[in-house]
């Protein structure tokens, strides 16, 4: 009885701190707890973790939540009191938990609630307060216009033939199952041959977008663009980088752009800071490339190529990125003035490793951005050559 209530509260805590914990997980947790020794804190932890966590990213958060929750509810769960080894410094993730605990004003768990709250509040680190980013409110009109514009986006190589088939009267292959099914109506006599054709779909799109100081003025338009793209097609992954790399794919999927942007502003700590392109690319290559670049992904790299670290590591990591994706497109919004040349070391290091170079001369609207990306590709490497040769 007590146990059931505690599992429910624990599931609620996990849900508030951002994990996807549903009724299924709660039920499974109840069931799992009947099979382990409740007197052993370790066993309870392992069992709950096995049934309630479904993603690698959630493991750490779960451990923190378990630590907080079952310490406070020791009497009810029959778990042992914790040792003297309480963590000294608040590890990352506790802030999310602290917020989740603070927001939970529905039925409080029984017991030392007061002490619990204090405990969680202490872990809140003021220095971790992230610099928020203001975005102009988007009206419904603007959102609709953005949706219409994004429909016109056609990236180069935007049709990829999959290995799946769909019915098509003039397709190249005979669909045997359908033909036989059809013949049943005529007593086994085949009167019409069903045919099929390969399904084509856009390849996965991975966007790496620079949000450092020099790019700050485009942040609004770029986020606008990223949000529309992420909600228009499937298999889009979006990363922001300045000094650090942040994956904002899940946040962008939020239908309401305001909410999505608010979540992103909270998540990303380095708006308008410096850029470390080499480091950001290295951590993308190391942590994400194998996870998101499968299935022939097209990479769209949005940056002006101004690098704080003097282009350290940019060339190597660009080469690796180039080697592991199907097509690498560089969108450079710095070409506001004619006659701009790639003098920066970052740009020089990047240029040899891109398939497609898309300069934007006046990035002031979503329309210009989409038009530039959708333009038919010129002769191979033409844009680079033109840019390079400029005196």
């Amino acid at each position: 009885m007590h146990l059931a209530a505690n599992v429910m509260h624990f599931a609620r805590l996990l849900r508030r701190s951002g994990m996807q914990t549903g009724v299924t997980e709660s039920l499974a947790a109840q069931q799992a707890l009947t099979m382990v020794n409740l007197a052993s804190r370790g066993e309870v932890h392992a069992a709950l973790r096995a049934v309630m966590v479904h993603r690698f990213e959630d493991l750490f958060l779960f451990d923190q939540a378990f630590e907080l929750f079952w310490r406070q509810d020791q009497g009810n769960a029959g778990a042992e009191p914790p040792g003297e080894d309480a963590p000294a410094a608040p590890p990352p993730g506790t802030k999310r938990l602290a917020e989740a605990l603070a927001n939970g004003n529905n039925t409080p768990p029984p017991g030392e609630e007061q002490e619990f709250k204090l405990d969680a509040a202490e872990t809140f680190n003021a220095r971790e307060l992230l610099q928020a980013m203001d975005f102009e409110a988007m009206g419904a009109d603007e959102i609709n216009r953005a949706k219409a514009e994004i429909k016109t986006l056609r990236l180069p190589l935007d049709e990829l033939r999959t290995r799946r088939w769909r019915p098509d009267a003039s397709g190249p292959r005979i669909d045997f199952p359908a033909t036989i099914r059809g013949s049943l109506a005529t007593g086994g006599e085949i009167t019409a041959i069903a045919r099929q054709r390969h399904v084509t779909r856009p390849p996965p799109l991975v966007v790496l977008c620079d949000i450092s100081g020099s790019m700050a003025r485009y942040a609004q338009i770029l986020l606008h663009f990223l949000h529309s793209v992420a909600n228009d097609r499937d298999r889009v992954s979006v990363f922001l980088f300045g000094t650090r790399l942040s994956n904002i794919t899940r946040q962008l999927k939020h239908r309401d752009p305001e909410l999505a942007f608010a979540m992103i502003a909270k998540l990303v700590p380095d708006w308008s800071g410096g850029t470390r392109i080499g480091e950001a690319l290295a951590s993308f290559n190391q942590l994400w490339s194998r996870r998101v670049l499968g299935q022939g992904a097209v990479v769209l790299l949005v940056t002006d190529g101004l690098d704080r670290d003097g282009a350290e590591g940019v060339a190597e990591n660009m080469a690796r990125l180039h080697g592991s994706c199907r097509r690498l497109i560089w969108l450079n919004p710095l070409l506001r003035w004619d006659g701009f040349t790639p003098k920066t070391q970052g740009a020089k290091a990047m240029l040899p490793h891109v398939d497609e170079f898309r300069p934007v001369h006046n990035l002031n609207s979503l329309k210009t951005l989409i038009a530039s990306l959708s333009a038919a590709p010129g002769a191979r490497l033409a844009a680079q050559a033109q840019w390079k040769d400029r005196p």
Partner: protein
Amino acid sequence: MIPGTIVETASLLSNQGYVADRQLATTVHLALTMERPLFLEGEPGTGKTEIAKVLAAGLGRRLVRLQCYDGLDLAAAAYEWDHARQLMAIRQSEASGKALDIYGREFLLTRPLLSAIDPSQAPAVLLIDELDRADEPFEAFLLELLGDFQLSIPQFGVIRAVTKPVVVLTSNRTREVHDAIRRRCLYQWVDYPTAYREAAILRNKAPGLPAQLSAEVVAFVQRVRQTGVFKPPGVAETIDWAMALDALDQKELEPGAVEDTLGVLLKYQDDITALKASGLAAQVSDAKAQVNLV
């Protein structure tokens, strides 16, 4: 048949030569007793596929393996109608005038997923290997099987498992597997082993190795994993490398032999260059010092 406690599960695994930590043993135990699929994610070469093989051997069940690839469809994964036979049967029944059900069981070709839940066959361990290599539409085919251990075949009916198969899914994370699959499974991240566990695995998998060599190999590999290489070596690479050094009659680590055999351990040229640049001899002697300290 199914072990009753976590300890029994752990010993079932270890009897088959698989060294599992407590978290893994707990998850496997829960998957067995709760009859839920087990979703194993982790870097290549950390022993995910091995768990399914070991479970099949330990439980005395047949192993049904489905290797996933892009474009894998229902016909190759679950079942297929034998069209040639159907056409022949239609012709025959025309000649003989007998009524015919062309969607009978005899026209159904069994593929791995159907085979695993086929009531007419012995209980199975179903291994769905490298699910991330299949495309997203394939995941949808799996949902019914993972949730209810049954397959609905439109013209035929529902085939349901009498003894639920033990289902193990593995993924190398080359793509994110959909949440719908994750929800139906118990999730386990299979990490690189600790030095202690890795030494135990090496003893199991390569019993003839000189003790000094295997201890130093483990210490060295554990160090390499910390250096931030692009592809840290998995346990499979550790075993290969130890056996390679043994094949070269090495009794302990020696910088020259290490340099010559790095390709067994590291599979990217950048990693090999970086490791050499960081001073191979120093790394080797550090690893040796660590072993001697213990």
